[in-house]
């Protein structure tokens, strides 16, 4: 495969990952998935730890063989400690 073919292949795999995250159980459209040099980064916030586990499973499956860096945050559910004054 040519160098161009390798790059294009990674881009399509990233696009397929995004389609799968939206279409499957997660219904996840909020991930930032980017090709960075020879690696792929996946970043974003998910509602629960179960969602994070499922997301990481799908990412590993869809991007198998690629170096993937993930930064997946679980949404915080604590009450705020102060209001904003809109004077």
């Amino acid at each position, binding site marked *: 495969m040519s160098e161009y073919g390798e790059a294009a292949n990674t881009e399509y795999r990233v696009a397929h990952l995004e389609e799968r995250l939206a279409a499957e159980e*997660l219904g996840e459209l909020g991930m930032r998935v980017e090709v960075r040099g020879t690696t792929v980064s996946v970043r974003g*916030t998910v509602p*629960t730890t179960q*969602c994070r586990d499922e997301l990481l499973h799908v990412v590993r499956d869809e991007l198998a063989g690629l170096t993937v860096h993930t930064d997946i945050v679980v949404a915080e559910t604590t009450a705020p400690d102060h209001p904003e004054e809109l*004077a």
Partner: protein
Amino acid sequence: MIRVAAVGDIHMGKDSQGLLRPAFDTLPDCADLLLLAGDLTRHGTPEEARVVAREVSGLPVPVVAVLGNHDHHDERPDEVTAVLREAGVRVLEGQGTVVEVDGARVGVAGTKGFGGGFAGRCGSEFGEPLMKEFIRYTRRCADGLRDGLEDLARQGCEARIALTHFSPVPDTLAGEPLEIYPFLGSYLLAEAIDTAGADLAVHGHAHAGTEHGMTSGGVRVRNVAQPVIRRAFSVYHLHGSEASAAA
């Protein structure tokens, strides 16, 4: 002073039950009403809506909501709406509701809204029927929001809030890729807000955006998507109604 709690994009599923309730139970101490800015579920199923309904059921503050795009995914928004209304949630789409706070009338007008983009970089009613319908749908949402806000003014509300899922301004999208802005909101929503007047505009949808923005007419905009505010909800204290008069 009116204390407004708001959150959007809570994306509840069967594994979410009880996660937000402890924070919601503190609402009577810090807020007069709770706004839910859409994407309350992941796929818009009635089952997920029941999780949301149980999470807010019986709260001692009024709960006002709009649906988001996720709440439409299963193509049963009427059922989702019915489940939420049964739990006492006031679900808005193109209309308003009035909440009494210590004798003051607080009006909330809501619509899910839709995309299309922002002035100078937006879609238009041109070409294929699907493209024309895309923009016309957003325009209908914006018209409903404007009508709701104007009706609240006629009802003598001391404060009026515009509640949407999609964003009325690009300010609160900062952090999102520029390429997807047309899918995150529309200037038509901001135009409706500025035409009818409001004291605050609240939206969700843009998980990677920022909290603070403003319409070109000077109405403060807050993106309350849970990943943005990084807590169960935000609280805003509204003082006076200097922005209420229609422009």
